[in-house]
């Protein structure tokens, strides 16, 4: 009986540990806009992706690596999942935890892309992956509707850090 109880406690501890791992918050457009418009001297790398998007999944490690490579600089990575909110627990959270992503991950829960894509960036046609690099304080901003190689991402990011 005591053994069972210990097992139960252990299971509880394990569960709470996994629950404290990276969580994905579900946000609406105004919350995303707030983040995109934040007036700070931090360079943000915001990548729009989805678990079902093969080129996105391929380049995710490059974005996540930015956290380590530029740990001492004012750089922040935000991964915005375009998966459906209904897939949060089934797909997105397990994916993020399995890959042990260090970047902050949010899921944008909006249905009609035509109503919000232009508000993120008028140059974005809606194809995934899509990436924004910006520093609002320095009034620098670049949009990329393309897949990155690690080298391409570094080159583009360096332009913001000189």
């Amino acid at each position, binding site marked *: 009986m005591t053994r069972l109880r210990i097992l139960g406690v252990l299971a509880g501890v394990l569960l709470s540990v996994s629950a404290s791992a990276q969580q994905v918050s579900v946000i609406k457009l105004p919350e995303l806009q707030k983040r995109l418009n934040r007036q700070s001297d931090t360079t943000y790398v915001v990548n729009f992706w989805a678990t079902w998007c093969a080129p996105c999944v391929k380049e995710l490690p490059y974005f996540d690596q930015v956290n380590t490579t530029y740990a001492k600089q004012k750089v922040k990575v935000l991964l915005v999942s375009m998966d459906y909110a209904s897939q949060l627990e089934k797909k997105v959270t397990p994916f993020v935890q399995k890959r042990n992503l260090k970047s902050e991950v949010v899921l944008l829960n909006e249905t009609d892309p*035509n109503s919000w894509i232009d508000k993120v960036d008028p140059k974005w046609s*809606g194809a995934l992956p899509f990436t924004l690099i910006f520093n609002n304080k320095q009034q620098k901003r670049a949009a990329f509707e393309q897949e990155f190689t690690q080298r391409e991402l570094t080159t583009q990011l360096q332009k913001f850090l000189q």
Partner: protein
Amino acid sequence: MKKLLSFFTACLALVLLSNFVVGTAGYEVGDKVADFKLKNVDGKMVSLADNKAAKGYIVVFTCNTCPFSQAYESRIIALHQKYASKGYPVVAINPNDAGTVPEESFADMKARAATMKFPFPYLQDETQQVAKTFGATRTPHLYVVTKKGTDFVVSYIGAIDDNSEDASQVKTKYVEQAMTDILAGKPATTSSTKAIGCTIKWKRA
């Protein structure tokens, strides 16, 4: 007179040049469409000019593998069933490079068309030139083209509707809204919309 002529020539050159610049970024609503000749899954070559009865076409860039394309397949079939009899059949074009994604091969296209019982042509844009000319960037990416004389002109570009996940939750059917205007001989009130989709898998340079 000579001065006037050279002025007109300069204007013409400017117009041509600006058209060219716009052309590289793809079509906008009102642009004339260059006809194409692409291989259908039945092995036959298909051009817009082939169907003399067509008043226009619903041209959809789509593919075998993109979950968003798959989510819309039955809705694309429904569009064909609704508008082919009104003179606007669907023409589906797969622009993805099979060298990059093997499941986009011609054989896989045939299989997909058979499984889904596509009632419309499903064409392979092997050189990706048609997608580039249209300015398609993602799948699905839809264009309505309308016949004007012997030409086809772009009348609508963009999304199919406003809810890719659940057809029963759709509030605005963008294409159908545009088609209502187009069939009434009017320009589409909302002629350009955006949607999330899979990026076209371009050939590696």
